[in-house]
Protein backbone atom coordinates (compact mmCIF):
# COMPACT_ATOMS: atom_id res chain seq x y z
CA UNK A 1 0.00 0.00 0.00
CA UNK A 2 1.48 3.39 -0.98
CA UNK A 3 1.40 6.37 1.36
CA UNK A 4 -1.39 7.90 -0.75
CA UNK A 5 -3.40 4.72 -0.55
CA UNK A 6 -2.83 4.57 3.20
CA UNK A 7 -4.02 8.16 3.56
CA UNK A 8 -7.11 7.49 1.48
CA UNK A 9 -7.94 4.48 3.64
CA UNK A 10 -7.43 6.40 6.88
CA UNK A 11 -9.70 9.20 5.67
CA UNK A 12 -12.32 6.70 4.53
CA UNK A 13 -12.38 5.19 8.05
CA UNK A 14 -12.57 8.67 9.55
CA UNK A 15 -15.36 9.60 7.13
CA UNK A 16 -17.50 6.77 8.48
CA UNK A 17 -17.15 8.22 11.99
CA UNK A 18 -17.47 11.90 11.13
CA UNK A 19 -19.46 11.94 7.87
CA UNK A 20 -19.99 15.69 8.12
CA UNK A 21 -16.25 16.49 8.24
CA UNK A 22 -14.50 18.43 5.48
CA UNK A 23 -11.18 16.67 4.96
CA UNK A 24 -9.94 19.21 2.43
CA UNK A 25 -9.12 21.48 5.34
CA UNK A 26 -7.69 18.81 7.64
CA UNK A 27 -4.30 19.75 9.10
CA UNK A 28 -2.22 16.51 9.16
CA UNK A 29 -0.33 17.66 12.24
CA UNK A 30 -3.25 18.69 14.43
CA UNK A 31 -5.24 16.10 16.35
CA UNK A 32 -8.46 14.76 14.84
CA UNK A 33 -10.12 15.26 18.22
CA UNK A 34 -9.46 19.00 18.12
CA UNK A 35 -10.28 19.47 14.46
CA UNK A 36 -13.32 17.22 14.18
CA UNK A 37 -14.69 17.34 17.74
CA UNK A 38 -14.35 13.59 18.24
CA UNK A 39 -15.19 11.96 21.58
CA UNK A 40 -13.89 8.77 23.21
CA UNK A 41 -16.41 6.60 21.38
CA UNK A 42 -15.44 8.13 18.03
CA UNK A 43 -11.77 7.48 18.80
CA UNK A 44 -12.51 3.86 19.72
CA UNK A 45 -14.53 3.40 16.53
CA UNK A 46 -11.71 4.98 14.54
CA UNK A 47 -9.17 2.55 16.02
CA UNK A 48 -11.51 -0.37 15.33
CA UNK A 49 -11.87 0.91 11.75
CA UNK A 50 -8.08 1.07 11.30
CA UNK A 51 -7.72 -2.39 12.82
CA UNK A 52 -10.19 -3.76 10.29
CA UNK A 53 -8.84 -1.84 7.29
CA UNK A 54 -5.14 -2.48 7.91
CA UNK A 55 -5.34 -5.78 9.78
CA UNK A 56 -3.16 -4.54 12.63
CA UNK A 57 -3.63 -5.01 16.33
CA UNK A 58 -3.50 -1.66 18.14
CA UNK A 59 -2.94 -1.71 21.91
CA UNK A 60 -4.77 0.92 23.93
CA UNK A 61 -1.44 2.44 24.96
CA UNK A 62 -0.82 3.35 21.30
CA UNK A 63 -4.03 5.35 20.78
CA UNK A 64 -2.15 8.60 21.37
CA UNK A 65 0.09 7.86 18.38
CA UNK A 66 -2.99 7.81 16.15
CA UNK A 67 -4.18 11.26 17.16
CA UNK A 68 -3.17 12.99 13.89
CA UNK A 69 -3.11 12.06 10.22
CA UNK A 70 0.69 12.16 10.22
CA UNK A 71 0.79 10.04 13.34
CA UNK A 72 -1.46 7.45 11.72
CA UNK A 73 0.67 7.32 8.55
CA UNK A 74 3.81 6.84 10.60
CA UNK A 75 2.28 4.23 12.90
CA UNK A 76 0.77 2.19 10.09
CA UNK A 77 3.81 2.45 7.79
CA UNK A 78 5.63 -0.44 9.43
CA UNK A 79 2.85 -3.04 9.27
CA UNK A 80 1.99 -1.90 5.74
CA UNK A 81 5.64 -2.23 4.63
CA UNK A 82 5.81 -5.66 6.29
CA UNK A 83 2.70 -6.69 4.38
CA UNK A 84 4.37 -5.71 1.07
CA UNK A 85 7.41 -7.96 1.62
Amino acid at each position, binding site marked *: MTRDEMQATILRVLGEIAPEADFARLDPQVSFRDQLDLDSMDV*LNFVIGLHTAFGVDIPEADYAKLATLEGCLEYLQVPCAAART
Partner: protein
Amino acid sequence: MPTLGADMQAGTLVEWRKQAGDRVARGEIIAEVETDKGLIEIEVFTPGVIERLLVAPGEQVPVGTVLAIIREDGTSAETGAAEQSTTSAVVAPAPVSTAAQAIPPAVAPPPTAALPVAGTRVRVSPAARARAAELGIDLSTVVGGGPRGVIEREDVERTAAVGEGRAGAAPAGAPPETATSERQTRMRQTIAAAMARSKREIPHYYLAQTIDMQRVTAWLGDANARRPVTERLLAGILLIKAVALALREVPELNGTWSEEGARLRSDVHVGVAIGLRQGGVVVPALHDVDRRTVDDLMQGFRDLVTRARRGSLRSSELSESTITVTSLGEQGVETVFGVIYPPQLAIVGFGKIVERPWVVAGQVVVRPVVTATLAADHRVTDGHRGGLFLAAIDRLLQTPERL
Protein backbone atom coordinates in the same frame (compact mmCIF):
# COMPACT_ATOMS: atom_id res chain seq x y z
CA MET B 1 -46.80 8.52 14.53
CA PRO B 2 -45.21 7.89 17.91
CA THR B 3 -43.85 10.71 19.99
CA LEU B 4 -40.15 10.03 20.13
CA GLY B 5 -39.14 12.07 23.11
CA ALA B 6 -40.10 15.40 24.52
CA ASP B 7 -39.10 17.37 21.50
CA MET B 8 -40.97 15.90 18.57
CA GLN B 9 -44.08 17.29 16.90
CA ALA B 10 -44.40 15.54 13.57
CA GLY B 11 -42.69 13.08 11.30
CA THR B 12 -42.55 12.25 7.61
CA LEU B 13 -43.06 8.67 6.55
CA VAL B 14 -40.10 7.77 4.34
CA GLU B 15 -40.62 4.12 3.63
CA TRP B 16 -42.73 1.15 4.60
CA ARG B 17 -40.58 -1.88 5.35
CA LYS B 18 -43.69 -4.11 5.45
CA GLN B 19 -46.80 -4.31 3.32
CA ALA B 20 -50.47 -5.04 3.99
CA GLY B 21 -50.87 -8.76 4.61
CA ASP B 22 -47.37 -9.16 6.10
CA ARG B 23 -47.02 -10.80 9.49
CA VAL B 24 -45.06 -8.78 12.01
CA ALA B 25 -43.52 -9.73 15.35
CA ARG B 26 -43.08 -7.53 18.39
CA GLY B 27 -39.98 -5.35 17.97
CA GLU B 28 -39.87 -5.78 14.21
CA ILE B 29 -39.23 -2.63 12.19
CA ILE B 30 -42.23 -1.68 10.13
CA ALA B 31 -41.34 1.76 8.76
CA GLU B 32 -38.78 4.51 8.55
CA VAL B 33 -39.73 8.03 9.59
CA GLU B 34 -37.87 11.28 9.10
CA THR B 35 -37.90 13.56 12.16
CA ASP B 36 -35.94 16.47 13.56
CA LYS B 37 -33.51 13.85 14.84
CA GLY B 38 -32.93 12.12 11.54
CA LEU B 39 -34.29 8.83 10.27
CA ILE B 40 -36.02 6.81 12.96
CA GLU B 41 -36.99 3.16 12.60
CA ILE B 42 -40.50 2.49 13.87
CA GLU B 43 -41.00 -0.77 15.71
CA VAL B 44 -44.12 -2.87 16.16
CA PHE B 45 -45.44 -3.37 19.68
CA THR B 46 -48.23 -5.80 18.86
CA PRO B 47 -47.64 -8.98 16.88
CA GLY B 48 -50.14 -9.73 14.15
CA VAL B 49 -50.89 -9.19 10.50
CA ILE B 50 -50.85 -5.78 8.87
CA GLU B 51 -54.32 -5.00 7.69
CA ARG B 52 -53.87 -1.56 6.21
CA LEU B 53 -51.19 1.07 5.76
CA LEU B 54 -52.80 4.47 6.27
CA VAL B 55 -50.02 6.92 5.47
CA ALA B 56 -48.20 7.13 2.17
CA PRO B 57 -44.42 7.60 1.84
CA GLY B 58 -43.59 11.30 1.69
CA GLU B 59 -46.52 12.34 3.87
CA GLN B 60 -45.79 14.42 6.96
CA VAL B 61 -48.14 13.73 9.83
CA PRO B 62 -48.36 14.99 13.41
CA VAL B 63 -47.53 12.92 16.45
CA GLY B 64 -50.50 10.74 17.29
CA THR B 65 -51.58 9.98 13.74
CA VAL B 66 -52.33 6.30 13.14
CA LEU B 67 -49.87 4.97 10.58
CA ALA B 68 -51.23 1.46 10.06
CA ILE B 69 -53.71 -1.06 11.41
CA ILE B 70 -52.43 -4.40 12.64
CA ARG B 71 -54.82 -7.26 13.21
CA GLU B 72 -53.73 -8.95 16.39
CA ASP B 73 -53.17 -12.70 16.35
CA GLY B 74 -56.25 -14.73 17.21
CA THR B 75 -58.78 -12.29 15.81
CA SER B 76 -60.59 -12.45 12.52
CA ALA B 77 -61.22 -9.73 10.00
CA GLU B 78 -64.41 -7.88 10.71
CA THR B 79 -65.80 -4.59 9.76
CA GLY B 80 -67.24 -1.50 11.34
CA ALA B 81 -67.14 -0.98 15.05
CA ALA B 82 -65.85 -4.47 15.73
CA GLU B 83 -62.68 -3.60 13.91
CA GLN B 84 -61.83 -1.13 16.60
CA SER B 85 -61.67 -3.83 19.22
CA THR B 86 -59.87 -6.49 17.25
CA THR B 87 -57.13 -4.44 15.71
CA SER B 88 -54.45 -2.27 17.14
CA ALA B 89 -52.94 0.74 15.60
CA VAL B 90 -49.19 0.82 15.05
CA VAL B 91 -49.37 3.95 17.09
CA ALA B 92 -52.28 4.72 19.35
CA PRO B 93 -54.09 7.85 18.22
CA ALA B 94 -53.02 10.69 20.43
CA PRO B 95 -54.42 13.97 19.22
CA VAL B 96 -51.59 16.30 19.93
CA SER B 97 -53.49 18.87 21.91
CA THR B 98 -54.60 16.24 24.41
CA ALA B 99 -51.57 13.99 24.13
CA ALA B 100 -50.74 13.92 27.82
CA GLN B 101 -53.45 11.46 28.78
CA ALA B 102 -53.50 9.48 25.54
CA ILE B 103 -49.89 8.37 25.40
CA PRO B 104 -48.34 5.77 27.68
CA PRO B 105 -46.96 7.43 30.81
CA ALA B 106 -43.46 6.16 30.06
CA VAL B 107 -43.38 8.24 26.93
CA ALA B 108 -42.36 11.84 27.25
CA PRO B 109 -45.45 13.97 26.76
CA PRO B 110 -44.54 16.36 24.02
CA PRO B 111 -44.19 19.77 25.62
CA THR B 112 -44.19 21.22 22.15
CA ALA B 113 -47.25 19.31 21.14
CA ALA B 114 -49.43 22.20 20.12
CA LEU B 115 -48.51 21.66 16.52
CA PRO B 116 -51.54 22.89 14.68
CA VAL B 117 -53.38 20.08 13.02
CA ALA B 118 -56.66 20.11 11.22
CA GLY B 119 -59.32 18.80 13.54
CA THR B 120 -57.44 19.37 16.76
CA ARG B 121 -57.80 22.35 19.03
CA VAL B 122 -54.75 24.49 19.60
CA ARG B 123 -54.75 25.97 23.08
CA VAL B 124 -53.50 29.51 23.39
CA SER B 125 -53.17 31.71 26.45
CA PRO B 126 -54.91 35.10 26.20
CA ALA B 127 -51.58 36.92 26.57
CA ALA B 128 -50.15 34.87 23.72
CA ARG B 129 -53.14 35.60 21.50
CA ALA B 130 -52.80 39.34 22.13
CA ARG B 131 -49.05 39.28 21.52
CA ALA B 132 -49.50 37.29 18.29
CA ALA B 133 -51.96 39.89 17.02
CA GLU B 134 -49.51 42.63 17.98
CA LEU B 135 -46.59 41.01 16.17
CA GLY B 136 -48.62 39.78 13.23
CA ILE B 137 -47.75 36.16 13.96
CA ASP B 138 -49.97 33.39 12.64
CA LEU B 139 -50.71 31.19 15.68
CA SER B 140 -50.74 28.11 13.48
CA THR B 141 -46.98 28.55 13.05
CA VAL B 142 -46.27 28.69 16.78
CA VAL B 143 -45.08 25.69 18.79
CA GLY B 144 -46.58 25.65 22.28
CA GLY B 145 -44.15 25.16 25.14
CA GLY B 146 -46.59 25.45 28.02
CA PRO B 147 -48.26 22.69 30.02
CA ARG B 148 -49.95 20.25 27.63
CA GLY B 149 -48.63 22.21 24.72
CA VAL B 150 -50.47 25.43 25.42
CA ILE B 151 -49.08 28.32 23.39
CA GLU B 152 -47.81 31.01 25.71
CA ARG B 153 -46.65 34.57 25.20
CA GLU B 154 -42.97 33.56 25.16
CA ASP B 155 -43.65 30.93 22.45
CA VAL B 156 -45.11 33.65 20.23
CA GLU B 157 -42.10 35.90 20.88
CA ARG B 158 -39.68 33.07 20.16
CA THR B 159 -41.41 32.37 16.86
CA ALA B 160 -41.22 36.06 15.98
CA ALA B 161 -37.52 36.15 16.89
CA VAL B 162 -36.76 33.07 14.78
CA GLY B 163 -38.58 34.65 11.86
CA GLU B 164 -36.50 37.82 12.16
CA GLY B 165 -33.29 35.83 12.52
CA ARG B 166 -33.98 33.94 9.34
CA ALA B 167 -34.91 37.03 7.42
CA GLY B 168 -31.83 38.85 8.69
CA ALA B 169 -29.45 36.01 7.93
CA ALA B 170 -30.59 35.34 4.41
CA PRO B 171 -29.30 37.79 1.85
CA ALA B 172 -31.54 38.63 -1.08
CA GLY B 173 -31.48 35.90 -3.65
CA ALA B 174 -29.95 33.38 -1.25
CA PRO B 175 -31.00 29.78 -1.78
CA PRO B 176 -33.65 28.49 0.59
CA GLU B 177 -32.44 26.83 3.75
CA THR B 178 -31.42 23.24 3.28
CA ALA B 179 -33.42 20.46 4.86
CA THR B 180 -30.58 19.92 7.33
CA SER B 181 -30.49 23.49 8.59
CA GLU B 182 -34.28 23.56 8.82
CA ARG B 183 -34.13 20.40 10.85
CA GLN B 184 -31.53 21.98 13.10
CA THR B 185 -33.69 25.03 13.61
CA ARG B 186 -36.64 22.82 14.51
CA MET B 187 -34.46 20.75 16.83
CA ARG B 188 -33.24 23.94 18.54
CA GLN B 189 -36.80 25.15 19.03
CA THR B 190 -38.02 21.88 20.39
CA ILE B 191 -35.06 21.44 22.76
CA ALA B 192 -35.75 24.98 23.92
CA ALA B 193 -39.37 24.12 24.62
CA ALA B 194 -38.50 20.93 26.53
CA MET B 195 -35.81 22.59 28.61
CA ALA B 196 -37.92 25.69 29.30
CA ARG B 197 -40.72 23.43 30.48
CA SER B 198 -38.27 21.56 32.70
CA LYS B 199 -36.96 24.73 34.31
CA ARG B 200 -40.48 26.13 34.70
CA GLU B 201 -42.21 23.06 36.12
CA ILE B 202 -39.59 20.91 37.82
CA PRO B 203 -38.17 22.13 41.14
CA HIS B 204 -34.61 20.91 40.68
CA TYR B 205 -32.14 20.30 43.46
CA TYR B 206 -28.46 19.71 42.74
CA LEU B 207 -25.79 17.58 44.41
CA ALA B 208 -22.20 16.77 43.53
CA GLN B 209 -19.74 14.17 44.74
CA THR B 210 -16.11 13.64 43.76
CA ILE B 211 -15.33 9.98 43.24
CA ASP B 212 -11.94 8.26 43.34
CA MET B 213 -11.52 6.48 40.00
CA GLN B 214 -8.22 4.74 40.74
CA ARG B 215 -9.74 1.26 40.84
CA VAL B 216 -11.86 1.86 37.73
CA THR B 217 -8.97 3.12 35.59
CA ALA B 218 -6.62 0.37 36.80
CA TRP B 219 -9.22 -2.36 36.19
CA LEU B 220 -10.10 -0.88 32.79
CA GLY B 221 -6.45 -0.60 31.68
CA ASP B 222 -5.82 -4.19 32.66
CA ALA B 223 -9.03 -5.50 31.06
CA ASN B 224 -8.49 -3.59 27.81
CA ALA B 225 -4.86 -4.74 27.53
CA ARG B 226 -6.14 -8.31 27.37
CA ARG B 227 -8.94 -7.62 24.91
CA PRO B 228 -8.99 -7.26 21.13
CA VAL B 229 -9.79 -3.70 20.06
CA THR B 230 -13.35 -4.61 19.12
CA GLU B 231 -14.13 -5.69 22.69
CA ARG B 232 -12.55 -2.86 24.66
CA LEU B 233 -14.53 -0.88 27.19
CA LEU B 234 -14.81 2.85 27.89
CA ALA B 235 -14.98 4.23 31.43
CA GLY B 236 -18.33 5.76 30.51
CA ILE B 237 -20.03 2.38 30.31
CA LEU B 238 -18.94 1.54 33.87
CA LEU B 239 -20.38 4.87 35.03
CA ILE B 240 -23.69 4.14 33.32
CA LYS B 241 -23.84 0.63 34.83
CA ALA B 242 -23.04 2.03 38.29
CA VAL B 243 -25.91 4.53 37.93
CA ALA B 244 -28.33 1.73 37.02
CA LEU B 245 -27.28 -0.43 39.97
CA ALA B 246 -27.45 2.54 42.36
CA LEU B 247 -31.06 3.08 41.25
CA ARG B 248 -31.95 -0.28 42.79
CA GLU B 249 -31.02 1.28 46.12
CA VAL B 250 -32.78 4.60 45.48
CA PRO B 251 -35.54 3.62 43.05
CA GLU B 252 -37.51 6.84 43.46
CA LEU B 253 -35.14 8.57 41.03
CA ASN B 254 -36.11 6.15 38.25
CA GLY B 255 -39.36 6.90 36.44
CA THR B 256 -41.52 9.69 35.13
CA TRP B 257 -43.73 12.45 36.48
CA SER B 258 -47.36 12.98 35.52
CA GLU B 259 -50.25 14.95 36.96
CA GLU B 260 -51.01 12.02 39.24
CA GLY B 261 -47.50 12.18 40.67
CA ALA B 262 -44.38 10.10 40.21
CA ARG B 263 -44.65 6.83 38.37
CA LEU B 264 -41.65 4.77 39.43
CA ARG B 265 -40.31 2.08 37.13
CA SER B 266 -38.71 -1.24 37.93
CA ASP B 267 -36.95 -1.37 34.56
CA VAL B 268 -33.92 0.89 34.22
CA HIS B 269 -33.66 2.40 30.75
CA VAL B 270 -30.86 4.94 30.76
CA GLY B 271 -31.11 7.77 28.26
CA VAL B 272 -27.58 8.60 27.17
CA ALA B 273 -27.09 12.15 25.96
CA ILE B 274 -25.24 12.15 22.64
CA GLY B 275 -24.21 15.55 21.37
CA LEU B 276 -24.41 15.96 17.60
CA ARG B 277 -21.51 17.77 16.02
CA GLN B 278 -23.83 19.66 13.68
CA GLY B 279 -25.59 20.96 16.79
CA GLY B 280 -28.31 19.57 19.00
CA VAL B 281 -28.46 16.51 21.17
CA VAL B 282 -30.28 13.19 21.11
CA VAL B 283 -30.94 11.04 24.16
CA PRO B 284 -31.61 7.47 23.06
CA ALA B 285 -32.21 4.79 25.70
CA LEU B 286 -29.97 1.91 26.61
CA HIS B 287 -32.51 -0.64 27.81
CA ASP B 288 -32.40 -2.75 30.99
CA VAL B 289 -29.00 -1.44 31.97
CA ASP B 290 -29.07 -2.90 35.50
CA ARG B 291 -29.53 -6.43 34.14
CA ARG B 292 -26.94 -6.47 31.33
CA THR B 293 -23.20 -7.15 31.41
CA VAL B 294 -20.83 -4.27 30.74
CA ASP B 295 -19.69 -6.02 27.54
CA ASP B 296 -23.23 -6.24 26.26
CA LEU B 297 -23.87 -2.62 27.26
CA MET B 298 -20.69 -1.49 25.52
CA GLN B 299 -21.78 -3.09 22.26
CA GLY B 300 -25.22 -1.53 22.66
CA PHE B 301 -23.72 1.88 23.44
CA ARG B 302 -21.38 1.75 20.43
CA ASP B 303 -24.28 0.84 18.21
CA LEU B 304 -26.42 3.67 19.64
CA VAL B 305 -23.73 6.31 19.12
CA THR B 306 -23.04 5.12 15.59
CA ARG B 307 -26.71 5.21 14.66
CA ALA B 308 -27.30 8.53 16.44
CA ARG B 309 -24.52 10.10 14.36
CA ARG B 310 -25.95 8.56 11.20
CA GLY B 311 -29.47 9.57 12.18
CA SER B 312 -31.09 6.14 12.34
CA LEU B 313 -32.40 5.54 15.83
CA ARG B 314 -35.42 3.37 16.67
CA SER B 315 -38.73 4.55 18.06
CA SER B 316 -38.42 2.62 21.34
CA GLU B 317 -35.00 4.14 21.95
CA LEU B 318 -36.38 7.66 21.87
CA SER B 319 -39.37 7.22 24.10
CA GLU B 320 -38.59 4.87 26.95
CA SER B 321 -35.82 6.40 29.07
CA THR B 322 -36.44 6.39 32.81
CA ILE B 323 -33.41 8.55 33.72
CA THR B 324 -30.71 10.40 31.77
CA VAL B 325 -26.93 10.23 32.04
CA THR B 326 -24.83 12.91 30.43
CA SER B 327 -21.03 12.91 30.25
CA LEU B 328 -19.47 16.17 29.19
CA GLY B 329 -15.87 15.50 30.15
CA GLU B 330 -14.54 15.06 26.62
CA GLN B 331 -13.33 18.63 26.33
CA GLY B 332 -12.39 19.14 29.97
CA VAL B 333 -15.64 19.99 31.75
CA GLU B 334 -15.38 18.79 35.35
CA THR B 335 -18.86 19.48 36.70
CA VAL B 336 -22.21 19.14 34.93
CA PHE B 337 -25.26 21.02 36.21
CA GLY B 338 -27.99 19.01 34.51
CA VAL B 339 -31.47 20.02 33.41
CA ILE B 340 -33.96 17.18 33.86
CA TYR B 341 -35.47 15.88 30.63
CA PRO B 342 -39.24 15.93 31.20
CA PRO B 343 -41.04 13.85 32.32
CA GLN B 344 -38.10 12.07 33.93
CA LEU B 345 -37.26 12.53 37.59
CA ALA B 346 -33.49 12.95 37.49
CA ILE B 347 -30.38 13.47 35.39
CA VAL B 348 -26.90 12.32 36.36
CA GLY B 349 -23.85 14.17 35.04
CA PHE B 350 -20.23 13.10 34.86
CA GLY B 351 -17.28 15.35 34.11
CA LYS B 352 -13.78 14.56 32.90
CA ILE B 353 -11.68 12.05 34.81
CA VAL B 354 -8.81 14.23 36.03
CA GLU B 355 -5.79 13.67 38.26
CA ARG B 356 -6.07 15.56 41.54
CA PRO B 357 -4.40 15.53 44.95
CA TRP B 358 -6.37 13.12 47.15
CA VAL B 359 -5.92 12.19 50.77
CA VAL B 360 -5.58 8.48 51.51
CA ALA B 361 -4.85 7.42 55.10
CA GLY B 362 -3.52 10.85 55.99
CA GLN B 363 -1.22 11.05 52.96
CA VAL B 364 -1.69 13.27 49.94
CA VAL B 365 -1.51 11.18 46.78
CA VAL B 366 -2.39 11.76 43.12
CA ARG B 367 -5.61 10.05 42.07
CA PRO B 368 -7.83 10.09 38.98
CA VAL B 369 -11.18 11.46 40.12
CA VAL B 370 -14.51 12.26 38.53
CA THR B 371 -17.25 14.61 39.71
CA ALA B 372 -20.67 12.97 39.63
CA THR B 373 -23.65 15.30 39.86
CA LEU B 374 -27.34 14.75 40.33
CA ALA B 375 -30.15 17.09 39.38
CA ALA B 376 -33.39 15.64 40.71
CA ASP B 377 -37.06 16.54 41.05
CA HIS B 378 -37.77 17.85 44.55
CA ARG B 379 -41.43 16.86 44.22
CA VAL B 380 -40.32 13.24 44.39
CA THR B 381 -37.08 13.07 46.37
CA ASP B 382 -35.08 15.16 48.80
CA GLY B 383 -31.37 15.83 49.03
CA HIS B 384 -30.85 13.09 51.57
CA ARG B 385 -32.02 10.37 49.17
CA GLY B 386 -30.08 12.00 46.35
CA GLY B 387 -26.98 11.93 48.52
CA LEU B 388 -27.47 8.22 49.22
CA PHE B 389 -27.74 7.64 45.47
CA LEU B 390 -24.43 9.40 44.71
CA ALA B 391 -22.79 7.54 47.60
CA ALA B 392 -24.03 4.26 46.12
CA ILE B 393 -22.51 5.16 42.74
CA ASP B 394 -19.20 5.89 44.49
CA ARG B 395 -19.28 2.60 46.39
CA LEU B 396 -20.16 0.57 43.28
CA LEU B 397 -17.27 2.13 41.34
CA GLN B 398 -14.81 0.91 43.97
CA THR B 399 -15.43 -2.68 42.83
CA PRO B 400 -15.46 -2.31 39.04
CA GLU B 401 -14.99 -6.03 38.50
CA ARG B 402 -18.46 -6.59 39.96
CA LEU B 403 -20.26 -4.13 37.72
